[in-house]
């Protein structure tokens, strides 16, 4: 009688046997094959693509930071060796920050590719929505390829997702010109599909034109860049924010100058680390990197950080005053002030577009128009108004480049500018081969067709 006790265990075993216990479903992931299946999930996939831009390896910290760290605006003051190498312009092919930037950019491109491919076969999606969402994917893909081409030169062009683990055997680098061609093709596809003109945290028609202006500008097509920049200035209702400091708000508030900002929130996977990394420890940051003495002297001529007292730091240039502050005796980057990482990052803003147009005009030798564009920026910054007088074309270009540095400091543009202008080696005192980042060694290991950049 007592051996009935065995029964429950055996019965349970019997019941268990029927339930197909080996087919266990995940509750926090969904199968790739069915992930994008209707208009709701298509919109979610587009949001997920922007989420990739929030990554710390993307605009959450790395891309804006290395753009100043490699150049003469910022220097390394923490303990991360990967950043130390970037500061020294002695980057190893094993550098983890470079690997992260590379892999995140391609992960974002893959998100875009998934959307572009899968939306094409979805039946219950109205054409307008499909166009809008695909247009955004084209924009993000173009943005990523432009970042890649600026830092790495020739890069592989991937336009479709794959499920083949051996895909690496056929991947090779495409020349810079082909990458630019693809970017412009994507921007044309985006422009023809996006009708949204108001959003500043997702791709809008204005953002597509602004990115196009930047891409043409970096490619040296100054007439094209000038035309695009002019269109952005006049056709979309953008306006300079009244105060420089308005642009950098701890709550991510919008300004009329915003063209495309990446959202940052307190949530860990959407947080920006820009403030945290630049702030001194006394004000709650890690002090991973800090402004150089050189840019301080550029904001306040004659200021010597090593000799002068912190109380001597009072630049009349409002950008210098905002961007660099002191905590005790220590200088630190104060452009971004949300240590909890809630500050939306300005990927494209009107200030940059005006300076693109100014430089393009100068290079087209339309100097008065160039100077009047430049002075829009100067006025707001309380910086000396530039008078054309008898200045040569080169002097005007140099003045615009110098102001561009001050205006866009700590937004990640300086290194690409130095490389674009061909002066990176001179300014930084490095070998010309160090002006391109290395292709990550781990990537070359699994993609035999990838060549390394010279000098690595």
């Amino acid at each position, binding site marked *: 009688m*007592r*051996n009935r*006790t*065995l*029964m429950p*265990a055996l019965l349970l*075993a*019997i019941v*268990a*046997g029927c339930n*197909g*216990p*080996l087919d*266990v479903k*995940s*509750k*926090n*992931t*969904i*199968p*790739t094959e069915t*992930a994008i299946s209707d208009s709701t999930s298509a919109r*979610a*996939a587009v*949001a*997920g*693509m*922007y*989420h*990739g831009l929030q990554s710390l390896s993307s605009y959450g910290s790395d891309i804006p930071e290395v753009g100043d760290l490699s150049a003469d605006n910022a220097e390394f003051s923490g*303990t991360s*060796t990967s950043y130390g190498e970037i500061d020294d312009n002695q980057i190893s092919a*094993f550098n983890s920050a470079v690997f992260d930037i590379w*892999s995140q950019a*391609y*992960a974002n491109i*893959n*998100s875009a590719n998934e959307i572009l491919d899968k939306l094409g076969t979805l039946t219950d999606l109205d054409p307008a929505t499909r166009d809008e969402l695909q247009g955004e994917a084209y924009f993000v893909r173009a943005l990523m390829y432009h970042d890649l081409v600026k830092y790495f030169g020739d890069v592989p062009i991937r336009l479709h*997702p*794959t*499920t083949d*683990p051996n*895909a*690496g055997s056929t991947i090779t680098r495409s020349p810079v010109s082909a990458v630019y061609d693809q970017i412009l093709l994507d921007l044309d596809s985006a422009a023809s599909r996006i009708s949204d003109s108001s959003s500043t*945290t997702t791709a809008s028609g204005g953002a597509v034109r602004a990115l196009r202006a930047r891409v043409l500008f970096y490619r040296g097509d100054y007439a094209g860049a000038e035309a695009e920049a002019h269109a952005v200035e006049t056709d979309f209702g953008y306006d300079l924010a009244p105060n420089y400091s308005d642009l950098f708000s701890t709550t991510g508030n919008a300004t009329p100058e915003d063209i495309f900002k990446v*959202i940052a929130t307190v*949530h*860990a996977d*959407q947080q920006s680390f820009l403030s945290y990394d630049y702030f001194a*420890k*006394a004000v*709650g*940051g*890690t002090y991973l990197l800090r402004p150089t003495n050189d840019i301080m002297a550029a904001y306040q001529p004659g200021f010597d950080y*090593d000799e002068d007292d912190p109380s001597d730091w009072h630049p009349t240039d409002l950008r210098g005053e905002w961007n660099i502050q002191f905590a*005790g005796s*220590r200088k630190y980057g104060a452009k971004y002030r949300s240590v909890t990482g809630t500050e939306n990052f300005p990927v494209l803003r009107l200030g940059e577009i005006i300076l693109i147009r100014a430089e393009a005009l100068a290079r087209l030798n339309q100097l008065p128009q160039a100077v009047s564009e430049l002075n829009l920026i100067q006025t707001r910054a309380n910086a000396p108004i530039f008078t054309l007088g008898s200045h040569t074309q080169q002097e005007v270009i140099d003045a615009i480049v110098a102001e561009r540095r001050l205006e866009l400091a700590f937004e990640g543009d300086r290194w690409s500018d130095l490389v674009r202008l061909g002066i990176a080696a001179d300014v930084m005192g490095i070998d010309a081969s160090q002006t391109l980042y290395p292709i990550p060694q781990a*990537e070359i290991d*699994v*993609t035999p067709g990838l060549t390394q950049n010279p000098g690595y």
Partner: protein
Amino acid sequence: MSFSRSIWKIALAACAAASIAQAKAQGTPAPNVAIVRGTVTDSSSHAPVPGAQVVAVGTTRGALTDTAGEYTLRVPPGTLTIRVQRIGYAPSERTVTAALDGTTTADFVLRPVSTVLSEVVVTGYGTQNRAQVTGAVTQVAGQEVQNQPVAGVDAALQGKAAGVQVTQNSGEPGTGISVRVRGAASLSASNQPLYVVDGIPIANDPLAQQLFPAGSEAPTAITGLDPNEIESITVLKDAASAAIYGSRASNGVVMITTKRGLAGKAKFSVDLSTGIQNAATKLKLMDATQYVTYMNEGAINDGDGIQFFAGIDDATSTDWQDAIFRTGPVQNLHMGVSGGSETLRYNVAGSFFKQTGIVLGSAYNRANLRVNVDYDATPKFSLKTSIGLAREHNDRIEGNNSNDGIVTNAIGQPAVYHVRNPDGSFTSTADTTPSNNSEVYSNPVAIGTYDRLPDVTDHILGNLEGNYIFSPHLTLTGSAGVDILHDNENQWRSPLVVGNYAFGAHGVAQTTFDNTNHYLLQSYLTYQGGSDEGSALTVVGGGSIEYNTENSSFLRGEGFSSPEFQYVGSATNLVDFGGIPTANNLESFFGRANYSYKNRYLLQATMRADGSSRFGVNNRWGYFPAVSAGWVISDEPFMGNFGNRFGQLKLRGSFGKTGNQSIPNFAALATYGSANYGSTPGIAPLAFANPNLKWESTKEWDGGLDWYPFGGRISIIADYYHKLTSDLLTRRELPCTIGYCSFFDNIGNVVNRGFEFGLNTVNFKPAARGGFSWNTDFNISFNHNEVTKLNADQPVAGDNYRDISRAAVGQPIGEFYVLHFEGVDPATGDALYSDDRINAGSPQPKWFGGLGNTFGYKNFELRGFLEFSHGAKVFNLMRIFADDGGYSYDNKFAYAMNRWQNPGDLTDEPRASFDGTSGGREISDRFIEDGSYLRIQEITLSYRLPAGLFGARGLTNAKLYVSGHNLHNFTKYTGYDPDVNSNGTSNIDLGTDYYAYPRARTFTLGISGDF
């Protein structure tokens, strides 16, 4: 699925059998009782043998002999086989006829044999006598791991078992231990053995720890078990022994059996010990004057301005290690009561272990309760429960790669900073003195004082087992087990630690809950038969199903109005949260047959089939066969008198296949995960598919011998093995350009081969009670580990800094791969290196083991235990900052003062160099050190109190002891301890010391006894 159907069939068959048995049992009138009694004596001394186990074979009836060697058994009348066994004696059996209501006398004379030879080995779904064992199995008695001032059983195993390498990842109480049985084989799946406690395999994946992902400090599944509860530990080492656990067995199986009650008067036992611990070693770091001298010299060498003012900044010097180290008490109390009637036996025990860490802020407490009950409901049917409850409260400290690591910052913080300001407040790196500009580390004393990182786990390990004896030949066993682990981690990062993130964020609180549940149902039939011609056959067969689920949640809040609030509920912002439900299930069928002829020819065959939900649909089921054989050659007639003269000699050989399924759940699937943008819900590609993902499989050959010369006074167990692990579960790298940088695949082979040798000797046997005795236990293991195949033969790097640790074909796993340091140029003081990286040494030892000696005289016993390891290299990763020439502001090892200073200086320390121009900060084998060591792990002196000291009914077996642990470590290593692994859960990043918590030296005083 056809296997689901077969589980049906087996379960139904089992049910039917049980029902028939039940019907039969109901149909038989309750039998009357017969009594068998007798005396058990020693064949050589003729003294009574107390504590011998007497059982009526084929019934649930058993008893123990008392101090006079006498026993009484109540059995059903009829002809019965009575078996007597006791460790240290050969078992003995005889047939008796017990008359109804009568008393039959059966006396036994036991022949003493080697302790090892007589031990009962737990083999999984059954036990075997050591003499019958054909595989490579090591047993460690419970007493070997008791009274150790370490929290876990796994730590206490260090050096005790041949072939079992135990690494203490760090000295932090109650945290990570790496156990490797016959070498590591896997690159991505777990390399920890499977633990089976009282027949229940427990979850052996690394415990999910959200706040402590760094590796070395993650607790292991087994830390919650009180070593005092353990009767024995059996390690199934070769594939043939372990294959009965199939897909989880390729890292070996550790079978733990807890103590059970024996019939008799209630016996109370108590064990109380208390001790103190302090840091066994201190690093020799620069004092303030040395630091200022060195840093300024480095700046001047590189043409920079001086960094510190000599005479001002070094006016006082802080020893940061002294500031965080302390003497910590350790206490252990274990109390139990056991006893019972012949049919209902119990063992109830509780214990409390309390350890204050030697580093400020750390502590570990554990409370245990165990209830083991055996109930013989009828002569045919018995039930047993094994229930263990444990609560661990571990006050951890952040370590390793954290800017808030207490040990990290105490090593890194230069001596020029002070612990406190003149006003008593803690200094911080936000302060502006001394005069340089270096903000590097937060004040470790402030961190230890204000920050908290407690981890509370509740562990329930329970098993209900029923046995029904159909006949002396056939027994049905069914059991249901649970292994439930609730883990609650909290973290408080105080805003009072000026200069860290929490300071700016006004406090950070995190809390996580993680519930891991493992349910198991299993049943199996055991057939035992034999013939008069001396052949014996045992067959076990059955099935099991296991459900594993894990649910976790996580919250992080920031911004607190007061540092008194330390819980996430008071935060201004909820900045992060998460929760992961996950599950995996395992269906299994297993069988084993043992055949022996005249106890001279032994044969064993096993088979297991496992189906796991973790694998790709194309490869769900794995099959794990094994065979082994033994030949007691000394008993062969042609060996003549060999056996009597030279002792019993058994030759063994085995081959088997095992698997490893320890990879994340759902790793085979292509998935999208949640990826929100602002408040817009989003999804993004997460993982790349592999529908062919399957088991990692290990094929292992083993050849060995068991030899017991000099009448069993010496026992020698030696094995040679060759273990090939193939289809390695690997995170294979993908081109990131396709959007994913890696996925799980089965690629690569690893070979482990080696030799193990265990020796137990009775050097001096006392002629009379109280005479001098001396026993020695020694074991040594040699393992050669080599990666023989990888994907496209591309090396796989670990996560260690700059790929310095990797698995490369032709090299052992974790081989360091760095530049070779060729010395310091006497002309310039610059470090010289090879052009390319070289294979610079293995973190795996060439040989390791332990040596224990026990001396007895009268009431005194002296025990000493040495543990050793030879040939492993340790990457002293601290030196990339602490011996970098002054490139970082970190404090430096004092030996950096032997730097090159003038042309012609001959030294191994490059010149000081503030900008790193000397090359001294290059990652090279300059930082790789010899990790060989010989540790005086234990010396214990105990005194057995005379019986009757507290009256006849007072304390018996009372013992006073004083004990020292980790007394000294002979090593050339310059970090705290070469037995270290800062990346504990990593399979490739081995033997790196990145600010590991130092090991304690402990002195304890204890008393134990029964009453």
